[in-house]
């Protein structure tokens, strides 16, 4: 008798019409038919021979084919006489020592960054994302980076409009004089000033798109991630708002600059004080398993949620918005993607 053992690092997420198998060691996910889910479950309870015998002749060929797929992709291994009990299940608990992990700021003035510097240290914030409509000079970029020199921030990402001073010399100046910036996106760029090679200490993007802050919240395959930190956070918490804080252009402290509710203004209150206000953490544990439609989606643990733009048609008993993200064009019941903005419900926000 042969037994199939699924590796501990393999996470199978069942959707309404497909399954997603995530390899949390190789950091890849693949889609498979729903019936493979049943076979994987059967393989946990019975030997391979008995499972094959349970199917009609034609299906037996397919069970063998599925077994080959499981073996070829190294989702598990076969043992004789019994399962190998030496491999315990992987824990899906999530632990992150930072009180907050990220801050998303809609840039208004540099003084805001100076104001939050102490709070960033106290809250052990790891990442800063800055969205600006102001055209930053090289000095601006360097100043932003230097405000957080020797801080706990381990990365800064900046969205800024492209302007004619941005050329290779400009970017080289940033390369030589910044440390924490890992990503720069110049938007509204009609023509790339030079060909980008992998030569700077940060990733650099020029995009023609007129990126507005309200463009955020898109759900797309390109934003899905398979890695154990992301997946375990999504299994236990809200994949967007957990440990996030935001400041909008008026200095209002929010869960995200695009959310409506605010917890005070940065001119009057610290991030620490906003963080302990009632309601600040109310969305933190709203997992995709509790969000309508998403709860039936096979991508629910590799996708990043959005609570700022939702379909606004479901609320739970605690008053939390449990509607599907507005900018998601995926239908887990058909397995089909379509442009999210096609829906008549969504004509007001086409960004």
């Amino acid at each position, binding site marked *: 008798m042969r037994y199939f053992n699924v590796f501990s690092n393999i996470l199978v997420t069942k959707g309404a019409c497909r399954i997603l198998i995530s390899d949390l060691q190789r950091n*890849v996910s693949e889609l498979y038919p729903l*019936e493979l889910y049943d076979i994987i479950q059967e393989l946990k309870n019975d030997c391979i021979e008995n499972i094959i015998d349970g199917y009609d002749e034609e299906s037996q060929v397919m069970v063998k084919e599925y077994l080959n797929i499981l073996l070829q992709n190294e989702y598990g291994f076969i043992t004789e006489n019994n399962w190998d009990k030496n491999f315990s299940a992987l824990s899906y608990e999530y632990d992150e020592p930072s009180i907050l992990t*990220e801050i998303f700021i809609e840039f208004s003035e540099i003084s805001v960054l100076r104001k939050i510097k102490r709070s960033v240290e106290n809250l052990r914030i790891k990442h800063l994302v800055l969205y600006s409509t102001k055209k930053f000079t090289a000095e601006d970029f360097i100043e932003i980076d230097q405000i957080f020199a020797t801080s706990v921030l*381990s990365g800064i990402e900046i969205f800024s409009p492209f302007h004619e001073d941005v050329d290779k010399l400009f970017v080289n100046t940033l390369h030589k004089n910044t440390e924490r910036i*890992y990503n720069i996106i110049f938007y509204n760029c009609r023509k790339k000033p030079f060909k980008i090679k992998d030569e700077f200490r940060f990733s650099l993007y020029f995009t023609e798109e007129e990126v507005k802050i309200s463009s*955020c919240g898109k759900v797309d395959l390109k934003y899905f*991630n398979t890695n154990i930190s992301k997946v375990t956070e999504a299994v236990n918490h809200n994949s967007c708002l957990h440990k996030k804080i935001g400041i909008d252009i008026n200095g209002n402290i929010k869960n995200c600059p695009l959310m409506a509710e605010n917890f005070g203004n940065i001119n009057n209150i610290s991030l620490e004080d906003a963080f302990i206000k009632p309601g600040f953490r109310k969305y933190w544990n709203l997992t995709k398993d509790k969000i309508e439609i998403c709860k039936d989606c096979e991508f629910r643990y590799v996708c990043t949620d959005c609570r700022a733009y939702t379909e606004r048609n479901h609320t739970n008993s605690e008053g939390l918005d449990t509607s599907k993200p507005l900018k998601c064009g995926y239908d887990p019941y058909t397995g089909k993607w379509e442009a999210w903005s096609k829906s008549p419900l969504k004509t007001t926000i086409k960004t």
Partner: protein
Amino acid sequence: MKENFGEKHKLPLSFKHMEYCDHTSKRGDKKIIYILKSEKYQSNFYVREKPVKPLTRLL
């Protein structure tokens, strides 16, 4: 599990066409590690890190 209402065999399989995801979101494309200073953590070897997920989805 599919229900079996007393049939001899389980419901037949269909072996539908399989799709593969694009693996563009793989991390660790760059092998260079950038080292920073952090006063709070009293470290000269504080590693610059990209987040484990996209913090914004603007593009």
